[in-house]
Protein backbone atom coordinates (compact mmCIF):
# COMPACT_ATOMS: atom_id res chain seq x y z
CA UNK A 1 0.00 0.00 0.00
CA UNK A 2 1.25 3.48 -0.83
CA UNK A 3 2.42 5.57 2.09
CA UNK A 4 1.28 9.18 2.37
CA UNK A 5 3.75 12.02 2.44
CA UNK A 6 2.54 14.90 4.57
CA UNK A 7 3.33 18.54 5.29
CA UNK A 8 6.15 18.76 7.84
CA UNK A 9 4.86 22.05 9.24
CA UNK A 10 1.30 20.97 9.87
CA UNK A 11 1.85 17.33 10.79
CA UNK A 12 3.47 16.96 14.17
CA UNK A 13 3.68 13.17 14.01
CA UNK A 14 5.50 13.16 10.68
CA UNK A 15 7.84 15.88 11.85
CA UNK A 16 8.71 14.15 15.10
CA UNK A 17 9.19 10.80 13.38
CA UNK A 18 11.46 12.35 10.77
CA UNK A 19 13.73 13.93 13.38
CA UNK A 20 13.85 10.72 15.36
CA UNK A 21 14.58 8.66 12.28
CA UNK A 22 17.34 10.96 11.05
CA UNK A 23 19.07 10.79 14.41
CA UNK A 24 18.81 7.00 14.41
CA UNK A 25 20.35 6.79 10.94
CA UNK A 26 23.13 9.10 12.07
CA UNK A 27 23.88 6.75 14.97
CA UNK A 28 23.86 3.58 12.89
CA UNK A 29 27.25 2.58 11.53
CA UNK A 30 27.38 0.63 8.31
CA UNK A 31 30.02 -1.91 7.34
CA UNK A 32 31.72 0.82 5.32
CA UNK A 33 34.51 2.99 6.63
CA UNK A 34 36.19 6.04 5.24
CA UNK A 35 38.68 3.74 3.48
CA UNK A 36 36.10 1.42 1.91
CA UNK A 37 35.69 3.47 -1.20
CA UNK A 38 37.71 3.78 -4.37
CA UNK A 39 37.92 7.41 -3.24
CA UNK A 40 39.15 7.10 0.39
CA UNK A 41 37.96 10.01 2.44
CA UNK A 42 41.09 11.67 3.84
CA UNK A 43 41.62 11.51 7.58
CA UNK A 44 41.58 8.75 10.21
CA UNK A 45 39.69 5.53 9.55
CA UNK A 46 36.14 6.06 10.73
CA UNK A 47 32.87 4.20 10.20
CA UNK A 48 30.32 5.62 7.81
CA UNK A 49 26.85 5.95 9.27
CA UNK A 50 23.75 5.18 7.27
CA UNK A 51 22.63 8.80 6.96
CA UNK A 52 25.98 9.87 5.56
CA UNK A 53 25.69 7.30 2.79
CA UNK A 54 23.15 9.67 1.28
CA UNK A 55 25.57 12.58 1.56
CA UNK A 56 28.15 10.49 -0.29
CA UNK A 57 25.61 9.29 -2.86
CA UNK A 58 24.66 12.85 -3.73
CA UNK A 59 28.28 13.92 -3.95
CA UNK A 60 29.23 10.97 -6.13
CA UNK A 61 26.30 11.48 -8.50
CA UNK A 62 27.39 15.07 -8.91
CA UNK A 63 30.85 13.86 -9.78
CA UNK A 64 29.80 11.11 -12.15
CA UNK A 65 30.44 12.13 -15.73
CA UNK A 66 27.52 11.65 -18.09
CA UNK A 67 28.35 10.45 -20.59
CA UNK A 68 31.48 8.70 -19.31
CA UNK A 69 34.65 10.44 -20.26
CA UNK A 70 33.22 13.93 -20.08
CA UNK A 71 33.89 16.39 -17.32
CA UNK A 72 31.15 16.67 -14.68
CA UNK A 73 32.60 19.98 -13.56
CA UNK A 74 31.12 21.65 -16.61
CA UNK A 75 27.48 21.63 -17.57
CA UNK A 76 25.23 18.76 -16.59
CA UNK A 77 26.16 15.91 -14.26
CA UNK A 78 24.36 12.78 -13.11
CA UNK A 79 22.20 14.63 -10.60
CA UNK A 80 21.90 18.28 -11.67
CA UNK A 81 21.61 20.69 -14.55
CA UNK A 82 19.98 18.16 -16.83
CA UNK A 83 16.91 15.96 -17.28
CA UNK A 84 17.80 13.41 -14.59
CA UNK A 85 17.61 16.07 -11.90
CA UNK A 86 14.05 15.11 -10.95
CA UNK A 87 14.11 11.29 -11.33
CA UNK A 88 17.49 10.89 -9.67
CA UNK A 89 16.43 12.87 -6.62
CA UNK A 90 13.12 10.99 -6.53
CA UNK A 91 14.98 7.70 -6.29
CA UNK A 92 17.29 9.06 -3.64
CA UNK A 93 14.33 10.24 -1.53
CA UNK A 94 12.76 6.80 -1.80
CA UNK A 95 15.99 5.32 -0.53
CA UNK A 96 15.94 7.49 2.54
CA UNK A 97 12.26 6.79 3.06
CA UNK A 98 12.72 3.02 3.23
CA UNK A 99 15.67 3.50 5.58
CA UNK A 100 13.51 5.64 7.86
CA UNK A 101 10.70 3.09 7.73
CA UNK A 102 13.16 0.46 8.90
CA UNK A 103 14.73 2.34 11.83
CA UNK A 104 11.35 3.71 12.91
CA UNK A 105 9.84 0.25 12.59
CA UNK A 106 6.97 1.89 10.75
CA UNK A 107 6.29 0.66 7.21
CA UNK A 108 3.65 3.38 6.87
CA UNK A 109 6.05 6.24 7.45
CA UNK A 110 6.03 8.74 4.60
CA UNK A 111 8.79 11.27 4.12
CA UNK A 112 7.37 14.71 4.96
CA UNK A 113 7.69 17.70 2.66
CA UNK A 114 8.42 21.35 3.40
CA UNK A 115 6.05 23.60 1.48
CA UNK A 116 8.46 26.53 1.37
CA UNK A 117 6.14 28.57 -0.85
CA UNK A 118 3.78 28.95 2.11
CA UNK A 119 6.60 30.06 4.37
CA UNK A 120 7.68 32.62 1.78
CA UNK A 121 4.65 34.73 2.61
CA UNK A 122 4.68 34.51 6.40
CA UNK A 123 4.21 37.91 8.01
CA UNK A 124 7.21 37.35 10.24
CA UNK A 125 9.37 36.19 7.35
CA UNK A 126 10.25 32.62 6.39
CA UNK A 127 12.43 32.18 9.45
CA UNK A 128 9.34 32.50 11.64
CA UNK A 129 8.07 29.17 10.31
CA UNK A 130 7.41 26.51 12.90
CA UNK A 131 10.06 24.19 11.53
CA UNK A 132 12.87 26.61 12.49
CA UNK A 133 11.76 27.13 16.06
CA UNK A 134 13.55 25.84 19.13
CA UNK A 135 11.48 22.77 19.85
CA UNK A 136 12.35 19.08 20.16
CA UNK A 137 10.58 18.16 16.94
CA UNK A 138 11.70 20.96 14.63
CA UNK A 139 14.77 21.55 12.47
CA UNK A 140 16.18 24.23 14.77
CA UNK A 141 17.30 27.65 13.68
CA UNK A 142 20.21 29.21 11.88
CA UNK A 143 23.81 29.80 12.93
CA UNK A 144 27.36 28.76 12.23
CA UNK A 145 26.76 26.34 13.75
CA UNK A 146 23.08 26.25 14.65
CA UNK A 147 22.47 26.56 18.36
CA UNK A 148 18.82 25.63 18.77
CA UNK A 149 16.68 22.56 18.16
CA UNK A 150 17.33 18.84 18.22
CA UNK A 151 20.16 18.94 15.67
CA UNK A 152 22.58 20.99 17.76
CA UNK A 153 26.12 19.63 17.94
CA UNK A 154 27.60 18.88 21.34
CA UNK A 155 31.15 17.63 21.18
CA UNK A 156 30.80 15.84 24.53
CA UNK A 157 27.63 14.03 23.48
CA UNK A 158 28.35 11.39 20.83
CA UNK A 159 24.64 11.04 20.12
CA UNK A 160 24.30 14.68 19.09
CA UNK A 161 23.90 15.52 15.41
CA UNK A 162 27.12 16.34 13.61
CA UNK A 163 28.47 16.96 10.15
CA UNK A 164 31.18 14.39 9.42
CA UNK A 165 31.84 14.76 5.69
CA UNK A 166 32.13 18.01 3.81
CA UNK A 167 32.89 19.05 0.28
CA UNK A 168 35.86 21.10 -0.83
CA UNK A 169 35.37 24.31 -2.77
CA UNK A 170 36.07 22.63 -6.10
CA UNK A 171 33.23 20.20 -5.46
CA UNK A 172 35.21 17.18 -6.57
CA UNK A 173 36.78 16.04 -3.32
CA UNK A 174 35.56 15.77 0.22
CA UNK A 175 37.06 15.24 3.60
CA UNK A 176 36.21 14.45 7.18
CA UNK A 177 35.18 16.96 9.78
CA UNK A 178 33.32 16.95 13.07
CA UNK A 179 31.24 20.01 13.61
CA UNK A 180 27.76 21.39 13.92
CA UNK A 181 25.36 22.14 11.12
CA UNK A 182 25.58 25.55 9.47
CA UNK A 183 22.66 27.64 8.21
CA UNK A 184 22.60 31.30 7.17
CA UNK A 185 19.01 32.22 6.37
CA UNK A 186 18.17 34.78 3.75
CA UNK A 187 21.58 36.17 2.87
CA UNK A 188 21.25 38.55 -0.06
CA UNK A 189 22.90 37.73 -3.39
CA UNK A 190 25.53 36.74 -4.30
CA UNK A 191 25.90 34.69 -1.11
CA UNK A 192 22.30 33.52 -0.99
CA UNK A 193 18.75 34.60 -1.55
CA UNK A 194 16.80 36.95 0.69
CA UNK A 195 13.50 35.32 -0.29
CA UNK A 196 11.99 31.89 -0.75
CA UNK A 197 10.04 31.05 -3.90
CA UNK A 198 6.41 32.11 -3.62
CA UNK A 199 3.20 30.23 -4.33
CA UNK A 200 2.72 32.51 -7.33
CA UNK A 201 6.05 31.39 -8.74
CA UNK A 202 5.15 27.74 -8.20
CA UNK A 203 1.82 28.16 -9.96
CA UNK A 204 3.53 30.02 -12.79
CA UNK A 205 5.54 26.88 -13.49
CA UNK A 206 2.23 25.14 -14.34
CA UNK A 207 0.90 27.96 -16.53
CA UNK A 208 1.07 26.65 -20.08
CA UNK A 209 -1.44 29.08 -21.56
CA UNK A 210 -0.48 30.72 -24.86
CA UNK A 211 1.75 33.75 -24.60
CA UNK A 212 1.49 36.35 -23.25
CA UNK A 213 -0.80 34.79 -20.64
CA UNK A 214 1.48 31.85 -19.96
CA UNK A 215 4.50 29.92 -21.17
CA UNK A 216 3.54 27.02 -23.42
CA UNK A 217 7.03 25.52 -23.30
CA UNK A 218 6.37 24.56 -19.67
CA UNK A 219 4.05 21.81 -20.89
CA UNK A 220 7.16 19.96 -22.09
CA UNK A 221 9.47 18.29 -19.62
CA UNK A 222 12.75 19.43 -21.15
CA UNK A 223 14.29 20.74 -24.35
CA UNK A 224 17.61 20.57 -26.13
CA UNK A 225 20.31 21.28 -25.21
CA UNK A 226 19.04 19.69 -21.95
CA UNK A 227 21.14 21.81 -19.65
CA UNK A 228 20.94 24.97 -17.59
CA UNK A 229 19.86 27.02 -20.60
CA UNK A 230 16.90 24.84 -21.61
CA UNK A 231 13.29 25.77 -21.85
CA UNK A 232 10.81 23.40 -20.27
CA UNK A 233 9.49 22.42 -16.86
CA UNK A 234 12.56 20.63 -15.51
CA UNK A 235 14.80 23.63 -15.87
CA UNK A 236 12.18 25.95 -14.40
CA UNK A 237 11.74 23.73 -11.34
CA UNK A 238 15.46 23.15 -10.92
CA UNK A 239 15.89 26.89 -10.90
CA UNK A 240 17.86 27.91 -13.95
CA UNK A 241 18.13 30.59 -15.07
CA UNK A 242 17.47 33.31 -12.57
CA UNK A 243 17.68 31.31 -9.37
CA UNK A 244 14.05 30.35 -8.90
CA UNK A 245 12.23 27.48 -7.16
CA UNK A 246 14.59 24.63 -6.17
CA UNK A 247 17.87 26.53 -6.37
CA UNK A 248 16.57 29.51 -4.48
CA UNK A 249 15.60 27.34 -1.50
CA UNK A 250 19.16 26.05 -1.21
CA UNK A 251 20.33 29.64 -1.40
CA UNK A 252 17.89 30.90 1.21
CA UNK A 253 18.83 28.25 3.78
CA UNK A 254 22.54 28.68 3.04
CA UNK A 255 25.31 27.13 5.10
CA UNK A 256 25.52 23.39 4.53
CA UNK A 257 22.73 23.56 1.95
CA UNK A 258 25.17 25.26 -0.41
CA UNK A 259 27.93 22.76 -1.26
CA UNK A 260 27.81 19.41 -3.02
CA UNK A 261 27.32 17.73 0.36
CA UNK A 262 24.01 19.55 0.92
CA UNK A 263 22.20 16.41 2.21
CA UNK A 264 24.20 17.06 5.38
CA UNK A 265 21.29 19.26 6.39
CA UNK A 266 18.19 17.11 7.00
CA UNK A 267 16.08 19.91 5.58
CA UNK A 268 17.55 18.90 2.22
CA UNK A 269 15.19 15.91 2.06
CA UNK A 270 12.15 17.95 3.18
CA UNK A 271 12.94 20.47 0.46
CA UNK A 272 13.44 17.89 -2.27
CA UNK A 273 10.28 16.08 -1.20
CA UNK A 274 8.43 19.31 -1.98
CA UNK A 275 10.22 19.58 -5.31
CA UNK A 276 9.10 16.03 -6.02
CA UNK A 277 5.53 16.97 -5.05
CA UNK A 278 5.58 19.84 -7.56
CA UNK A 279 6.87 17.48 -10.26
CA UNK A 280 4.10 15.04 -9.42
CA UNK A 281 1.55 17.82 -9.93
CA UNK A 282 3.07 18.69 -13.28
CA UNK A 283 2.79 15.08 -14.39
CA UNK A 284 -0.86 15.00 -13.33
CA UNK A 285 -1.44 18.02 -15.56
CA UNK A 286 0.78 17.14 -18.50
CA UNK A 287 1.19 13.40 -18.45
CA UNK A 288 4.00 11.22 -17.20
CA UNK A 289 6.30 12.41 -19.92
CA UNK A 290 10.06 12.64 -19.99
CA UNK A 291 12.67 13.81 -22.44
CA UNK A 292 15.07 12.95 -23.95
CA UNK A 293 14.04 9.54 -25.23
CA UNK A 294 16.43 6.88 -26.48
CA UNK A 295 16.72 8.43 -29.93
CA UNK A 296 18.81 11.18 -28.38
CA UNK A 297 22.51 11.04 -29.25
CA UNK A 298 25.13 9.38 -27.04
CA UNK A 299 26.21 12.80 -25.83
CA UNK A 300 23.12 12.60 -23.62
CA UNK A 301 23.92 9.12 -22.29
CA UNK A 302 22.96 9.08 -18.62
CA UNK A 303 20.04 11.45 -19.14
CA UNK A 304 17.90 9.50 -21.60
CA UNK A 305 14.71 7.84 -20.44
CA UNK A 306 16.06 4.28 -20.27
CA UNK A 307 19.60 5.07 -19.16
CA UNK A 308 20.69 3.92 -15.73
CA UNK A 309 20.62 6.50 -12.99
CA UNK A 310 23.53 6.60 -10.56
CA UNK A 311 22.00 4.06 -8.19
CA UNK A 312 22.49 0.44 -7.03
CA UNK A 313 19.69 -0.70 -9.35
CA UNK A 314 21.53 -0.57 -12.63
CA UNK A 315 19.19 -0.57 -15.60
CA UNK A 316 16.19 -1.18 -13.31
CA UNK A 317 16.68 2.34 -11.99
CA UNK A 318 16.05 4.62 -14.94
CA UNK A 319 14.19 7.90 -15.39
CA UNK A 320 11.30 5.85 -16.78
CA UNK A 321 11.18 3.81 -13.56
CA UNK A 322 10.57 7.01 -11.60
CA UNK A 323 7.72 8.48 -13.63
CA UNK A 324 4.94 6.69 -11.80
CA UNK A 325 5.59 5.89 -8.15
CA UNK A 326 2.00 6.26 -7.03
CA UNK A 327 1.80 2.69 -5.77
CA UNK A 328 4.78 3.47 -3.55
CA UNK A 329 3.73 6.82 -2.10
CA UNK A 330 1.28 9.66 -2.58
CA UNK A 331 1.01 13.21 -1.27
CA UNK A 332 -1.70 14.39 1.07
CA UNK A 333 -2.04 17.61 -0.93
CA UNK A 334 -0.79 18.40 -4.41
CA UNK A 335 -0.09 22.09 -5.20
Amino acid at each position, binding site marked *: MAVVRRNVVTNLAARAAYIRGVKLLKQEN*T*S*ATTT*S*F*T*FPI*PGPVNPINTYD*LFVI*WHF*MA*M*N*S*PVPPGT*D*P*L*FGRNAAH*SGPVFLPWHRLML*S*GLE*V*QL*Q*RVLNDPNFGLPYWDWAVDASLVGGPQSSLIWQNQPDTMGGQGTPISTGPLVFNNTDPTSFRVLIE*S*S*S*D*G*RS*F*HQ*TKRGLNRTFGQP*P*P*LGSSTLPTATEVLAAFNTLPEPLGEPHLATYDFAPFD*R*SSNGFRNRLEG*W*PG*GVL*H*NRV*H*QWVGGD*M*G*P*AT*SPNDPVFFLHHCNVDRIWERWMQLNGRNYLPDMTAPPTLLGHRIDDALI*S*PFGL*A*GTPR*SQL*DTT*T*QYTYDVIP
Partner: protein
Amino acid sequence: MINPEEMAKLADPDFLANYLAGLPQPGPGHGGHPAVSVREDSYKGHRIVIKTTYEMTVDGKPLPIHVSLSNDGSAHVHGLPNYQFLSVVDLVRALIEFFPNEFPAEGPPADEYGGHGEPGGHGTHNAGGS
Protein backbone atom coordinates in the same frame (compact mmCIF):
# COMPACT_ATOMS: atom_id res chain seq x y z
CA MET B 1 8.65 1.90 -11.06
CA ILE B 2 11.26 -0.29 -9.43
CA ASN B 3 9.50 -3.37 -8.14
CA PRO B 4 8.90 -3.40 -4.37
CA GLU B 5 11.23 -6.32 -3.72
CA GLU B 6 14.09 -4.50 -5.38
CA MET B 7 13.23 -1.24 -3.66
CA ALA B 8 13.23 -2.97 -0.28
CA LYS B 9 16.92 -3.73 -0.75
CA LEU B 10 17.62 -0.05 -0.20
CA ALA B 11 16.53 -0.54 3.41
CA ASP B 12 19.76 -2.49 3.90
CA PRO B 13 22.48 0.10 4.52
CA ASP B 14 25.17 -2.21 3.20
CA PHE B 15 23.37 -2.55 -0.15
CA LEU B 16 23.92 1.15 -0.76
CA ALA B 17 27.33 1.21 0.95
CA ASN B 18 28.68 -1.59 -1.26
CA TYR B 19 27.40 0.15 -4.36
CA LEU B 20 28.97 3.48 -3.42
CA ALA B 21 32.24 1.78 -2.52
CA GLY B 22 32.49 0.48 -6.05
CA LEU B 23 31.90 3.76 -7.83
CA PRO B 24 34.93 5.10 -9.63
CA GLN B 25 36.85 7.88 -8.01
CA PRO B 26 35.88 11.30 -9.27
CA GLY B 27 38.17 12.16 -12.10
CA PRO B 28 40.61 15.01 -12.01
CA GLY B 29 38.41 17.01 -14.32
CA HIS B 30 40.40 19.01 -16.74
CA GLY B 31 43.20 18.75 -14.25
CA GLY B 32 45.33 21.51 -15.53
CA HIS B 33 45.06 25.09 -14.46
CA PRO B 34 43.70 27.35 -15.75
CA ALA B 35 40.59 25.51 -16.91
CA VAL B 36 38.79 26.40 -20.09
CA SER B 37 35.08 27.08 -20.24
CA VAL B 38 33.69 26.52 -23.73
CA ARG B 39 30.45 28.12 -24.87
CA GLU B 40 28.94 27.15 -28.18
CA ASP B 41 26.02 28.49 -30.11
CA SER B 42 24.61 28.69 -33.59
CA TYR B 43 23.28 31.92 -35.04
CA LYS B 44 21.97 32.46 -38.57
CA GLY B 45 23.91 29.49 -39.81
CA HIS B 46 27.11 30.49 -38.07
CA ARG B 47 28.79 28.40 -35.42
CA ILE B 48 29.98 30.36 -32.42
CA VAL B 49 32.62 28.99 -30.02
CA ILE B 50 33.87 31.05 -27.11
CA LYS B 51 36.65 29.70 -24.91
CA THR B 52 37.30 31.48 -21.66
CA THR B 53 40.05 30.93 -19.13
CA TYR B 54 40.46 32.44 -15.73
CA GLU B 55 43.58 32.71 -13.64
CA MET B 56 42.43 33.39 -10.14
CA THR B 57 44.34 34.02 -6.97
CA VAL B 58 43.26 34.79 -3.46
CA ASP B 59 45.88 36.34 -1.23
CA GLY B 60 48.33 35.65 -4.00
CA LYS B 61 47.70 31.91 -4.04
CA PRO B 62 46.24 30.19 -7.09
CA LEU B 63 42.62 29.19 -6.73
CA PRO B 64 42.35 25.86 -8.60
CA ILE B 65 38.65 25.83 -9.35
CA HIS B 66 36.84 25.47 -12.63
CA VAL B 67 34.45 28.19 -13.64
CA SER B 68 31.74 27.28 -16.11
CA LEU B 69 30.01 30.01 -18.06
CA SER B 70 26.50 29.86 -19.48
CA ASN B 71 25.52 31.53 -22.69
CA ASP B 72 23.76 34.23 -20.70
CA GLY B 73 27.12 35.09 -19.15
CA SER B 74 26.40 33.73 -15.68
CA ALA B 75 29.18 31.86 -13.92
CA HIS B 76 28.96 28.53 -12.11
CA VAL B 77 31.28 26.50 -9.93
CA HIS B 78 30.87 22.82 -9.17
CA GLY B 79 31.46 23.38 -5.45
CA LEU B 80 28.21 25.38 -5.16
CA PRO B 81 25.94 23.43 -7.48
CA ASN B 82 22.76 25.43 -6.93
CA TYR B 83 24.21 28.87 -7.49
CA GLN B 84 24.83 31.08 -10.47
CA PHE B 85 26.76 34.30 -10.28
CA LEU B 86 26.64 37.49 -12.29
CA SER B 87 30.38 37.93 -11.90
CA VAL B 88 33.35 35.70 -11.14
CA VAL B 89 34.33 38.10 -8.38
CA ASP B 90 31.03 37.31 -6.70
CA LEU B 91 31.70 33.62 -7.23
CA VAL B 92 35.05 33.79 -5.45
CA ARG B 93 33.56 35.83 -2.65
CA ALA B 94 30.97 33.10 -2.17
CA LEU B 95 33.65 30.42 -2.05
CA ILE B 96 35.47 32.35 0.67
CA GLU B 97 32.21 32.57 2.58
CA PHE B 98 31.22 28.91 2.23
CA PHE B 99 34.67 27.35 2.61
CA PRO B 100 36.41 29.54 5.19
CA ASN B 101 38.84 26.79 6.17
CA GLU B 102 40.35 26.91 2.70
CA PHE B 103 40.97 30.64 3.01
CA PRO B 104 42.56 31.15 6.41
CA ALA B 105 43.35 34.63 7.56
CA GLU B 106 47.05 35.21 7.01
CA GLY B 107 48.22 38.49 8.37
CA PRO B 108 48.10 41.70 6.39
CA PRO B 109 46.04 41.96 3.21
CA ALA B 110 47.74 40.82 0.05
CA ASP B 111 48.81 43.28 -2.59
CA GLU B 112 48.08 42.76 -6.24
CA TYR B 113 51.33 40.90 -6.72
CA GLY B 114 50.50 38.24 -4.19
CA GLY B 115 52.69 39.53 -1.44
CA HIS B 116 51.50 38.74 2.05
CA GLY B 117 52.60 37.01 5.20
CA GLU B 118 54.17 34.06 3.42
CA PRO B 119 57.32 34.57 1.43
CA GLY B 120 56.50 34.69 -2.24
CA GLY B 121 52.86 33.80 -1.78
CA HIS B 122 53.42 30.28 -3.07
CA GLY B 123 51.14 27.30 -2.71
CA THR B 124 47.51 26.96 -3.58
CA HIS B 125 44.33 27.12 -1.64
CA ASN B 126 43.70 23.66 -0.37
CA ALA B 127 40.68 22.25 -2.09
CA GLY B 128 41.21 18.85 -0.56
CA GLY B 129 40.44 19.40 3.04
CA SER B 130 41.46 21.18 6.10
